[in-house]
């Protein structure tokens, strides 16, 4: 292990002084909308959208200023106030603006802003639109706290804040029991991950007496290996929860119950990538523990395959995309676990994925918009004719994700696969395989949705969405095309102050592994076309005994496993304890009372009303006393 070069943060100056505005704007607006009530119904959504763009503007200005600074001055720490301090521990609230976090801020506010605009159209007729925008703003604020925090505890505030917002938005249509349940499930599973987060924080406090990124990064190398591993694994657990990585993946599919813009923003572009951010941010810890690193690689690899598997077998368009999201985040995890070589690639893929996946989710939303909110792809077909803009933009996203040359996914994913091969052949092969599967199920999605015959349900009249929805799609599609090429050779250098890696040379020309990837992807597309493109798709899912399909349709039995491992025991214990309290503990108390009552009734029989019996009792008592006297004297 080598000690990484780190850049000392400097105090905030210039536009950095206003970094807090990024968080404050959406937070304040969320507060206004929630407290203000119906008064704000008419213009609330506009205000909310404005707030996000204000944040974006601030982020952009800061980004520009950061770019203009020399590399050594790009990490800025701005202390806001003392949250609390106790004993020798101090927990300040501060912002940590560095090349990594500003990229996130741009992603969050940029994609967030687009999705806000999109939502204006998407949620136009929802009676609780104001609340929706308030929650979205709350989410953006929390997410910004997460990425801009200068220590793990403040990060945790954002971490939980996005969890809350995610819960609120998944359950947004709460009159649907499935949505309400999905929200709770998401929150609770995230909380399981939070065990890891909190334990990591506790461990850091025990080890360093501080949770500042700076302190942890500098001190990580001095950790005992055991503790480094522990902290690493704790962090990984947290990351798994938030990023829906195996084994805490089950909530993400259910989370698709939320409105589609939510799926796009939270469950594709931003929140679910927080785990990757966390691992990259904590790179020093992982570098101190090869075990933890390996664990990250394993989790990432397993998840990228698992997500892809699920993506292959779902008919629900959003769930396919959700599986795909899991899978893509698996790639990022894998990259982040590889070590210094992978951090930049993880972030790179994260950014491009944010663009094209948001694009596709919004596209799916647009499709649903035209299909009376149906999500079953078996009821779609031939939509390319009726929804041209949606089709075009979706198509670009499709090409980007499968890694069509020179679109954004091509650069970012190939780098990961290549890096994976260098680090760990097994992971590399899996990643390569995953790329093929990705191509397969995305092809399936495209074919079932936009091509083939029309399998629409009665009364459905597909139509293109309004401009307010298509314009964000177009912008995101453009980003999906150019982002990869723009950042390919730039990202490593840019992130150097944050992750301390020296850039590798990356070229636009495919390497041997790159070629292999292209071939595998092409194969995937071909197979997809062979299966779904050449013959009609049944409108009802054919029953299948293929274990792969069955497992995939059941989300790899994630719910069943959770049920057996956690839910059933917990609920059983809960009911058992509630019952035991009433009948066991209270029963014991009642039994004692009852026993005393019975004793009392028995003893009262001695009080039989006969004076002679009383006299006898007295004499016997006297004898007893006499015996006692004798006994005490013998003793």
């Amino acid at each position, binding site marked *: 292990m080598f000690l990484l070069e780190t850049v000392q943060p400097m105090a905030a100056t210039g536009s950095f002084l206003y970094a807090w505005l990024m968080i404050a704007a959406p937070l304040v607006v969320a507060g206004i909308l929630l407290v203000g009530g119906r008064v704000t119904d008419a213009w609330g959504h506009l205000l909310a959208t404005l707030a996000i763009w204000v944040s974006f503007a601030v982020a952009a200005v800061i980004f520009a200023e950061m770019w203009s600074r020399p590399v050594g001055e790009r990490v800025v720490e701005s202390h806001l106030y003392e949250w609390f301090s106790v004993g020798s521990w101090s927990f300040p609230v501060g912002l940590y603006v560095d090349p990594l976090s500003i990229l996130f801020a741009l992603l969050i506010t940029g994609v967030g802003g687009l999705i806000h605009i999109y939502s204006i159209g998407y949620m136009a007729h929802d009676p609780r639109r104001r609340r929706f925008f308030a929650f979205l703003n709350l989410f953006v604020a929390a997410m910004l706290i997460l990425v801009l925090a200068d220590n793990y505890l403040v990060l945790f505030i954002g971490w939980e804040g996005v969890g809350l917002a995610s819960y609120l938005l998944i359950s947004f249509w709460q009159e649907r029991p499935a949505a309400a349940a999905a929200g709770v499930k998401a929150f609770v599973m995230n909380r399981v991950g939070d065990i890891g987060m909190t334990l990591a924080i506790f461990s850091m406090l025990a080890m360093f007496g501080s949770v500042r990124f700076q302190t942890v990064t500098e001190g990580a190398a001095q950790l005992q290996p055991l503790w480094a591993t522990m902290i690493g694994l704790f962090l990984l657990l947290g990351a798994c929860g938030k990023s829906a990585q195996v084994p805490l993946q089950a909530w993400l599919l259910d989370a698709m119950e939320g409105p589609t813009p939510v799926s796009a923003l939270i469950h594709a572009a931003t929140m679910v990538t927080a785990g990757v951010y966390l691992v990259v941010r904590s790179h020093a810890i992982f570098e101190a523990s090869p075990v933890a690193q390996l664990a990250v690689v394993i989790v990432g690899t397993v998840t990228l395959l698992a997500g892809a598997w699920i993506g292959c077998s779902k008919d629900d368009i959003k769930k396919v995309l959700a599986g795909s999201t899991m899978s893509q985040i698996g790639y990022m995890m894998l990259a982040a676990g590889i070590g210094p070589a992978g951090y930049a690639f993880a972030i790179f893929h994260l950014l491009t994925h944010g663009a094209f996946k948001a694009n596709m989710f919004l596209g799916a939303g647009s499709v649903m918009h035209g299909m009376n909110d149906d999500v079953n792809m078996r009821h779609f077909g031939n939509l390319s004719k009726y929804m041209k803009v949606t089709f075009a933009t979706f198509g670009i996203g499709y090409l980007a994700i499968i890694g069509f040359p020179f679109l954004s996914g091509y650069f970012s994913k190939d780098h990961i696969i290549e890096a994976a091969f260098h680090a760990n052949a097994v992971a590399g092969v899996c990643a390569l395989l995953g790329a093929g599967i990705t191509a397969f199920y995305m092809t399936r999605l495209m074919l079932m949705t936009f091509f083939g015959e029309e399998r629409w349900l009665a009364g459905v009249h597909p139509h293109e969405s309004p401009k307010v929805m298509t314009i964000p799609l177009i912008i995101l599609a453009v980003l999906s095309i150019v982002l990869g090429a723009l950042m390919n050779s730039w990202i490593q250098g840019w992130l150097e102050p944050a992750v301390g890696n020296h850039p590798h040379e990356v070229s636009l020309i495919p390497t041997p592994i790159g070629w292999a990837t292209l071939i595998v992807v092409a194969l995937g597309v071909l197979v997809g076309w062979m299966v779904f493109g050449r013959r009609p798709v049944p409108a009802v899912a054919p029953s299948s005994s293929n274990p792969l399909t069955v497992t995939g349709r059941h989300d790899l039995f994630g719910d069943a496993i959770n049920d057996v491992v956690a839910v059933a025991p917990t609920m059983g214990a809960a009911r058992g304890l509630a019952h035991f309290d009433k009948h066991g503990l209270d029963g014991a108390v009642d039994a004692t009372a009852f026993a005393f009552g019975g004793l009392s009734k028995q003893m009262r029989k001695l009080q039989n009303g*006969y004076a*002679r019996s009383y006299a006898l009792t007295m004499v016997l008592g006297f004898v007893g006393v006499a015996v006692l006297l004798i006994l005490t004297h013998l003793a």
Partner: protein
Amino acid sequence: MNPENYLILAAILFAIAAVGVLVRRNALIAFMCVELMLNSCNLVLAAFAQMRGNLDGQVAAFFVMVVAAAEVVVGLAIVMMIYRTRRSTSVDDANLLKL
């Protein structure tokens, strides 16, 4: 004669009287047994006065007699009252108050 014999006699008397209280139902007889117990005490007092060589015990016996007389007055009054009400002097008949 050994004065201790008086003590033994007194003890026997006391025991007999006490058993009498326990076994006899008739309130008057039970009451008489109590008096017998008091008298056995008198015997003890007198015997000890002799043994200890002072008169205190004997004087005390007189006090006891007076007290016993007073007790008789009260006791008979109560027994009479009960008898007039219930037409019975059985102690066991009076057992309304119990449990």
